[in-house]
């Protein structure tokens, strides 16, 4: 199937020579949720802005639903909804009017039923006649989403939708995203909250210093790069790792009772069986064992701290 978004060799260099994007290639399939993860200043917003037409690319090409964003910008942009990172709203406008304006701007005939459906979906219906300045921060974010959805986009960009919002609202936001996915909307969201990517994305892309370091299915990414740790808890305190176990890369935890063993789940042999046998032969008594899967956060921190040259 044709990808809904296809980015080829996208570069963006500013007049002062700063390269915000250094040749990004990305394909996004219809209906998936992809999270672009990266530290501040990595190029996430620049990437989105370029696809949406707010920033002009230096080179490279982008198509949305097969339509080039420059030569066929009307068709391409009609398919896109954008929820910006900043709360960009006119303070004196009323909720319903501003959403209706967005729909008109995208060339869709006014349809009160559609506006009502969207406002209800985002729990904004009761606030429809309020001025934007009367709303809470969370409500304002919902208004931005309502505006982006007003013209029934097929591809929705959420630029850090949960930056600075409370936990409850973040959960709400995730539910909204799930709902949109069920409606067949493709979603690209940027975030620097790893838990967010972990919770809702199908695929994860990691951006740092203007380069897309990798894009992978979330599960596969975690499995491929995931390290597991085995904590062996002992009944007695140790001063140091026993000589008999020096062949293993063990770390004695601060409490003195836990030996931490890191292993790779991809390996044919994890070495756990032998380790446990040697622990018992060394005369140590086990109290408990526990394993821990490394989170996306560990993977992410590992990736962005590598030099971009190494990763590419």
């Amino acid at each position, binding site marked *: 199937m044709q990808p809904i978004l296809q980015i080829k060799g996208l570069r963006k260099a*500013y007049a002062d020579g700063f390269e915000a994007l250094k040749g990004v290639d990305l394909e996004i399939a219809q209906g998936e949720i992809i999270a672009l993860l990266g530290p501040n200043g990595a190029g996430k917003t620049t990437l989105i*802005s370029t696809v*949406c*037409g*707010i*920033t*002009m690319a230096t080179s490279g090409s982008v198509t949305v639903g097969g339509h080039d964003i420059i030569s066929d*910008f*009307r*068709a*391409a*942009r*009609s398919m*896109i909804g*954008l929820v*910006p990172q*900043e709360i*960009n*709203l*006119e*303070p*004196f406008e009323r909720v319903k*009017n501003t959403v*209706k*304006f*967005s*729909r*008109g*701007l*995208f*060339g*869709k*005939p006014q349809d009160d039923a559609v506006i009502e459906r969207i406002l209800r979906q985002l729990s904004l219906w009761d606030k429809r006649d309020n001025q934007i300045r009367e709303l809470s921060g969370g409500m304002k974010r919902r208004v931005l989403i309502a*505006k982006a959805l007003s013209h029934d986009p097929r591809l929705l960009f959420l630029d850090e939708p949960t930056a600075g919002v409370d936990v409850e609202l973040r959960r709400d936001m995730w539910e909204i995203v799930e709902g949109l996915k069920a409606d067949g909307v493709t979603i690209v969201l940027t975030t620097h909250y790893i838990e967010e990517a972990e919770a809702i994305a199908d695929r994860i892309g990691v951006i740092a210093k203007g380069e897309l370091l990798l894009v992978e299915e979330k599960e596969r990414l975690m499995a491929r790069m995931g390290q597991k740790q085995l904590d062996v808890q002992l009944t007695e305190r140790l001063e140091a790792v026993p000589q008999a176990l020096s062949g293993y890369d063990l770390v004695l935890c601060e409490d003195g009772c836990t030996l931490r063993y890191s292993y790779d789940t991809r390996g044919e042999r994890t070495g756990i069986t032998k380790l446990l046998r040697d622990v018992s032969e060394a005369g140590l008594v086990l109290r408990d064992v526990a394993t821990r899967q490394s989170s996306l956060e560990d993977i992410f921190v590992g990736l962005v701290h590598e030099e971009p040259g190494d990763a590419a």
Partner: protein
Amino acid sequence: MNFTAIKAIYLFEMARFFRTLAQSFISPVLSTSLYFVVFGAAIGSRIDQIEGVSYGAFIVPGLIMLSVITQGISNASFGIYFPKFVGTIYELLSAPVNFLEIVAGYVGAAATKALFIGVIILITAFFFVDISIAHPFAMVGFLLLTALSFALLGFIIGIWATNFEQLQLVPLLVVTPLVFLGGAFYSISMLPPVWQKISYFNPVVYLISGFRWSFFGTADVPIAVSLLAIAGFTALCMAVVWWIFKTGWRLRQ
């Protein structure tokens, strides 16, 4: 053409105008009334007729032009500057609209507001002085063209401005002097020859002269020259706006 988008922008901008209708209305009516009291009644009573017209009536076209020009500029410059200021410009830039549609929406709304004010001033004038309109269609045409061309200029100023001070700067430093020296309150022929020559470099002279012709049938410059001047000015503004959207100057990075 995305007419739905033009309509959306136009109505959105007009809604802003109607929200502050009383303010939009009272200030021009008040200032025009003051002009009539001071220049028409107090000083005007000591001035002879100019080109066969009483001084109070003579200044009416200039006063209308003064308001239409300043209103056209301020409405259009604010209309496009405000979205830049609050950040909602992102929506305009990412919408499936081309520059002509954006300009049509914003400039159309600004020109409508300016026209509205112009008509209000004309009506106010009827309460103070005796005036008749010799060429009503030409008058409406001049009013329309002036409102449109200066709204275009305002649109350019709004995109150029990076803060509210700059937004006020051009109208204050450039436009007001040009309008005052453009023969709003006098006939160019009343000036010494040197200043008459200098005045012909002022584009507003042609506007006010043409507009005055539509009222009284007399003009400082031939009517065709006036029309050419305003057409040239409009074309120049359109070319600048086209360039802005082509290069993304102060809009797209």
